[in-house]
């Protein structure tokens, strides 16, 4: 039975980059996937692209590729990544010239794009597509004018097409995270669009790989003390066979672990109904999924079923609405919690006296109840706490006034406070996420090959 080994080298933009090199150097591998795009990433990229139209993709991808390209070439490992972000064609060009400089002039890059709906929003609206909010049902014209990004989540077939056309590296815009792994399966094994069980198994493999170290012992609540060498955490590998069989593992000689409980945490991560985990190509049912520990950091995953896909692509939009600022002060023993609470009331009174208006405020006390709110348990007499006050305001100037007011309380307010940082916090634009759907007949993925032997 034919089998491929796919490594999951990145969980999000900002994740550990040496994991890619460890995956490539640590043992045999056929493919490696890197998932850069979280829900908020597109709006960050949009902001960057406004300042520099040549960007629109994670700026640290190319420096990483300078280190990884020789290894990818030597080990004959193909990379599939959504690092293209808002500008996959632009990234592919830069990747090509980087490859030329590193002695790989005939690198073939497959580009998957067409997911960016921003240029077509008006046209799509003209076709009667309302982009209603998936959760609230509100129509998108409630927010029109402030939208900063709008991307459809494509599936794995365009990724597979690029690989079948000989791509050494596939760069995509927005695709389902798991499509990065399902694409190689479709291309290698010839899985068809109506082989739902197989597509679902490849999707679950991708789901287990897409968050990198979370499938090999990172962020593990079931017994983190039993995970060795988190400083050298091995990133996960899926061994997928032609019939959709899956064994999750890691390279030997690195840190981390692969056990059923570790994989169960990742399996359930960011899912809704386990009988209907929806991606573009298939609806996955994991209610009968089982795991078997084969020992030596190998776990077999079986029982995933698939059903026909829905007629829509998921769309993620974001829009800007006001500014956010979080300010605060440290209060120390004695009576630090009482002092912090009293201080927050005085700060709000001051803002009112100064005529500084805000739309929303959240007061929380770190060391006390800041993260879990009223679920937190009572504390006796902490040594210090941090008073955090987070505001939504209309404009950056108001945010700055709040930031300036806060520091006056070190000398003018309740005693025994000090600043958390020498630098005053600065405001940032508030970006709101708007999930939606678009009919598959209204948008179409495009596959383009760049480079290769002349």
């Amino acid at each position, binding site marked *: 039975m034919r089998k491929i080994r796919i490594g999951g080298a990145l969980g999000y933009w900002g994740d550990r980059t040496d994991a890619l090199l460890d995956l490539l150097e640590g043992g045999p591998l056929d493919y490696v996937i890197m998932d850069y795009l979280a829900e908020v990433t597109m709006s960050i990229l949009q902001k960057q692209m406004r300042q520099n139209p040549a960007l629109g993709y994670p700026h640290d991808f190319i420096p990483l590729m300078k280190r990884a390209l020789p290894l990818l070439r030597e080990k004959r490992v193909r990379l599939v990544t959504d690092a293209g972000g808002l500008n996959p064609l632009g990234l592919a060009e830069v990747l090509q010239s980087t490859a030329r400089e590193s002695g790989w002039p005939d690198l073939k890059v497959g580009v998957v794009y067409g997911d960016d709906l921003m240029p077509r929003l008006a046209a799509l609206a003209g076709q009667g597509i309302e982009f209603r909010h998936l959760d609230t049902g509100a129509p998108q014209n409630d927010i029109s004018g402030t939208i900063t990004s709008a991307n459809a989540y494509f599936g794995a077939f365009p990724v597979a097409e690029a690989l079948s056309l000989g791509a050494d590296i596939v760069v995509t815009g927005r695709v389902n995270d798991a499509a990065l792994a399902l694409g190689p399966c479709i291309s290698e094994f010839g899985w068809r669009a109506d082989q739902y069980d197989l597509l679902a198994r490849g999707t679950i493999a991708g789901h287990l790989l897409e968050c990198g170290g979370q499938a090999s012992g990172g962020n593990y609540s079931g017994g983190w003390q039993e995970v060795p060498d988190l400083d050298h955490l091995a990133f996960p590998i899926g061994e997928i066979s032609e019939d959709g069989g899956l064994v999750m593992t890691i390279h030997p000689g690195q840190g981390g672990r692969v056990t059923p*409980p570790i994989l169960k945490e990742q399996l359930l*991560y960011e899912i809704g109904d386990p009988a209907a985990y929806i991606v573009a190509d298939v609806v996955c049912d994991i209610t009968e999924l089982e795991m078997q520990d084969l020992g030596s950091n190998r776990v077999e995953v079986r029982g995933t079923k698939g059903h026909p896909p829905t007629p829509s692509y998921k769309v993620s939009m974001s829009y800007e609405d006001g500014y956010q600022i979080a300010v605060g002060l440290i209060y120390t023993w004695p009576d630090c919690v009482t002092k912090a609470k009293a201080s927050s009331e005085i700060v709000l009174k001051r803002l009112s006296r100064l005529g500084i208006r805000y739309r929303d405020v959240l007061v929380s006390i770190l060391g006390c109840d800041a993260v879990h709110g009223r679920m937190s348990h009572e504390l006796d007499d902490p040594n210090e706490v941090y008073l955090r006050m987070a505001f939504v305001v209309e404009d950056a100037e108001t945010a700055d006034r709040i930031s300036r007011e806060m520091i006056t309380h070190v000398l003018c307010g309740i005693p025994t406070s000090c600043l958390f940082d020498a630098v005053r916090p600065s405001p940032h634009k508030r970006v709101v*996420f708007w999930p939606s759907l678009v009919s598959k007949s209204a948008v179409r993925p495009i596959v383009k090959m760049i480079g290769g032997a002349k």
Partner: protein
Amino acid sequence: MKELPLARIAHGRSGDKGDTVNCGIIARSPEYYSVIAAQVTAERVKAHFGDFCRGTVTRYDLPRIHALNFVLTRSLGGGGTASLRLDPQGKTYAAALMRMTVQVPDEWEA
């Protein structure tokens, strides 16, 4: 029977989709599953999260892997970069759920 925090017999991970958070809860041993399934109901989870959960709680059961998945809507203060919360992506919500208490047989060494 004795009372324990859920953390002693289960572990879990949470994550976000917009303003929705899900908590995957896994029994530390297969024998614990039926107790967890009987006591950690959607209603109790909704009450446990209190003002953190402004929407609904739906529970999905995965008995084959001795796990439950809870989906909490309108629970991240707007979610992502729109929320004022310190944990706008709900990364620690599963840990917050682990604070809930459960009644277990005295002989369990959990």
